[in-house]
């Protein structure tokens, strides 16, 4: 799996992100890392009201998380549609030999 993208965390965060990091720790806010843990619950509508409000507040102030969640949602759409194939019934055809083997197996003695 050497062809996977690698991370480079060697550079110091720019001032804007450092300020945001400090703001995220104020009461009623959440950090990007905490935000990460709530994404699926937020998207499927099961996040309770309190964390949901903190989640939304974070979304308003954080450009990176807005960009992230847009790409995450895009990924979900692409993933879900990757298999919706109008020809699925054809590609799922059961070959005759297999069909016969399956039907024959029904009457074979059970182990």
């Amino acid at each position, binding site marked *: *799996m050497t062809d996977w993208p690698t991370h480079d965390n060697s550079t110091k965060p720019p001032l804007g992100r450092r300020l945001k990091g400090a703001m995220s720790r104020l009461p009623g806010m959440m950090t990007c890392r905490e*935000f990460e843990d709530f994404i699926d619950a937020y998207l499927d509508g099961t996040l309770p009201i309190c964390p949901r409000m903190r989640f939304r507040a974070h979304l308003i102030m*954080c450009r990176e998380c807005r960009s*992230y969640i847009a790409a995450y949602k*895009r990924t*979900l759409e692409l993933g879900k549609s*990757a298999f919706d194939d109008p020809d699925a019934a054809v590609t799922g055809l059961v070959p005759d030999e297999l069909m016969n083997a399956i*039907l024959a197996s*029904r009457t074979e003695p059970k182990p």
Partner: protein
Amino acid sequence: MEAHAGTLRDDDDLVSALKAEDAGAFAEMVREYGPRMLAAIRRIVRDEALAQDCLQDAFLNVFRGIGTFDQRARLSSWLHRVAVNAALMRLRKLGRLKEASIDDLMPEFDGNDCRIEPTWRFEGSPESRLDAIKLKQQVRDNIDRLPESYRVVLLLRDIEELSTAEVAEALEITETNVKVRLHRARSALKKLLEPMWGHDD
């Protein structure tokens, strides 16, 4: 041709006939539901010979289990789950469901727990049918790059649309573990799809 051939009798009648060990009903079930079960199995095991073995396993389990099938449940959902379970059983026997590292594909944060993320610009809808097919293939190829234990959770939840509880049961892991794996799988897939998009910074 018999009266019901081609046009399906409804599920209740079919299940009653199956429980009565009616050979015609079994053939009808395999013909009607086999293709969709095989398609689901193929998505999971990605190997034609193995997929066909799994379908045989699945129908053996159906033949054995139809007597106890609860008629209030939907036959198609039950058959789908039996097919998925047969595929998972084979993967487990082959040792392909072991946990693998996926850390390189996880989101990035700096030392302040702030996210490092460019602003993405997504491609528009594919212009032609061919482009749409290519795009789907590209996404499927990337799903295939995920380690098996994550790929399977993503498939079962997002594609096969099993519930968290059903996936937990099928994979013999906790529901919390399913949620964690699903989120990591989706995040990893996002990372793998990123080269398809432009970004501003």
